[in-house]
């Protein structure tokens, strides 16, 4: 079973702290498992991909970071300045003007200040990679995964080309803006939202889905990250959360396993169980909120030792199992 068969561009967003970059990397690995060539791109200059794959900082150049099950993952950290120069060369044959522009601060202007231009360049580069053709030069990819800006900014980020179309009414920049919007709004794109089972990330996910829908952008899956397995019997959760676990029963069990069950220890363990149960019940409520979105929901376990390289492959396998491959 594959959840998004025709999708070529996977955009991954999520609130800060939800593990968006990790999930994007795991998704790239999962897609590569099926023998695909995958490009994993990062748009925020944090070098998060290099850190995950334990490689030196990535230059503005596609580098192979992993091979998995017949496929390969390449990574690219998009640098807006380099993307601008590439862009000027492609559309206006102006590479040599680059240094003159840099001298007067025009590059600085374009990439950090000009309204949304930075986002235009980033989305433009992603589209270029996703729509490359055989004769155009450059490596061909079966899928592109974008580690995108956070949920709070995602609709604006992806929709920036619609705004550009409003500022530039004709010419090559308008054409470029239109074709980026066409790709992003097509069935070849899916925007996945990474969240935790906590109030604020879930609320942001709900808001993000609404904003993406309003902007006509295709919402993909909700990816719930860092899910903890419930450790208490389901029928004891309410009692545990309310602090009404049977202390005598716990004490008797402890004794049978050879642990000295002082009152203090039993009370401490019951208190820890109460917090755990409270968290599990809260997670169940947040899970229901996410279900109401009516989108495919995939869950990824909390990795006890953080997301190292082997953890990344674990997460990729979980995505594959659940149909995101």
């Amino acid at each position, binding site marked *: 079973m594959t959840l998004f068969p025709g999708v070529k561009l996977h955009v991954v967003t999520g609130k800060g702290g939800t593990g968006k970059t990790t999930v994007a990397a795991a998704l790239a690995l999962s897609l590569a498992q099926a023998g695909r060539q995958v490009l994993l791109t990062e748009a925020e200059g944090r070098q998060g991909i290099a850190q995950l794959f334990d490689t030196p900082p990535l230059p503005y150049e596609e580098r192979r970071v992993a091979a998995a099950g017949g496929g390969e993952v390449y990574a690219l950290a998009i640098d807006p300045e380099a993307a601008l120069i590439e862009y000027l060369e492609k559309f206006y044959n102006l590479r040599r003007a680059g240094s003159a*522009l840099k001298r007067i601060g025009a590059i600085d202007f374009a990439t950090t200040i000009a309204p949304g231009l930075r986002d235009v360049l980033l989305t433009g580069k992603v589209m270029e990679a996703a729509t490359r053709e055989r004769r155009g030069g450059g490596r061909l990819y079966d899928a592109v995964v974008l580690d995108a800006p956070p949920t709070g900014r995602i609709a604006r980020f992806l929709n920036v080309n619609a705004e550009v179309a409003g500022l530039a009414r004709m010419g090559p920049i308008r054409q470029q803006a239109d074709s980026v919007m066409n790709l992003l709004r097509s069935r070849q794109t899916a925007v996945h939202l990474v969240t935790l089972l906590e109030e604020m990330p879930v609320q942001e996910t709900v808001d993000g889905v609404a904003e993406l829908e309003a902007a006509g952008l295709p919402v993909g899956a909700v990816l719930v990250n860092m899910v903890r397995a419930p450790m208490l019997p389901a029928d004891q959760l309410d009692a545990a959360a309310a602090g009404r676990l049977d202390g005598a029963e716990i004490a008797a069990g402890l004794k049978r*396993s050879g642990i000295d069950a002082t009152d203090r220890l039993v009370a401490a363990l019951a208190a820890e169980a109460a917090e755990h149960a409270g968290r599990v019940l809260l997670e169940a409520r947040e899970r229901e909120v996410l279900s109401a979105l009516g989108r495919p929901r995939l869950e990824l376990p909390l990795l*006890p030792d953080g997301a190292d390289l082997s953890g990344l492959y674990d997460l990729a396998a979980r995505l594959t199992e659940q149909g995101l491959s």
Partner: protein
Amino acid sequence: MTSYDATSAYDVDALLDQARILVCCGSGGVGKTTTAAALALRAAERGRKVCVLTIDPARRLAQSMGLSELDNTPRAVNDVDTAAGGSLDAMMLDMKRTFDEIVLTHAEPGRAQQILANPFYVSLSSSFAGTQEYMAMEKLGQLKREGRWDLIVVDTPPSRSALDFLDAPQRLGRFLDGRMIRLLLAPAKAGGRAYMKVLSVGMSVFTNVLTKVLGAQALKDLSLFVASLETMFGGFRERAEKTYQLLKEPGTSFVVVATPERDALREATYFVERLSEEQMPLAAVVLNRVHRSAAPELSVQRSLAGAETLDEAGDAPLAAAVLRVHADRLAAAARDERTAARFAGAHRAVPLVQVAAQAGDVHDLEGLRTIGEELANGPEASAPVA
């Protein structure tokens, strides 16, 4: 059980009683807003007149602080204990509105409307990454000038990097004062041939590119926008720098917020180093969501072995489950403690204040009080079991 002295030595209450401005910074998702609100509430209940400027609070936390109204001015928070003579006002930053207000204050009425309607202004004021940081600084400056509060606590925008808060305002100021602007102003001021003459080669290449790329109408809009800004702001950079200086005044302190995770601590490290370069006073690093165990004497191995014994016997499923919960919790606590110790070891001069992981999301004043208590008296102050 903490092995680093800085933790217990740092006096958060003394900071809250003396500081005039507290800036909370850190990467996204580490609990910055909650920390800012908890510090502000505690300072207010200790008798100071406090204003907290939040950027993007969780909905229910905002409601509990009476922040449902988005009118960009501080409002009194209800149910604050004012017995010590303090008070708490809170506001949520409305970035676009703050920018609009600057325009309305500094430009003549006709001109102001022209600016507000300009497409480039609309983009800059509502979506440029960096405007939010600049407006947070601007608002801080305004609140400070009002002089109504003993202490202003600022939450910083959820930037890509915590450093953006320090850099973005100057970048915006540099841009608006820079050569680019003078270039774009030229056509509006001189026009025609006189304008062509003053251009260097690089600049004429630039205007050509801009005309080609954006089209003539857009260039005209941009030029008009920039001209309007100039008459309005005089020295934008000067203004940005003045606000920046505010952050170096005595009475201003920074609180860097993080969680015991690799990425959050990396951002915290950048910030700590940057503050020290800029000679800006770092009060403390707050480590949120630190796991603690109420029964550290029962080891992970012992707990898991006990649970296994019970599983094999097939009885006492509750005790087995409770032991597993404990093992999991203790392992997390040990991990967090190692992480915290590593950070403390690398930054010996930086006080580290730890706050225990909360059982649920914090969304009322009572929850904030608990966190304030822990910030001041250590995580044991509210451990689940005494």
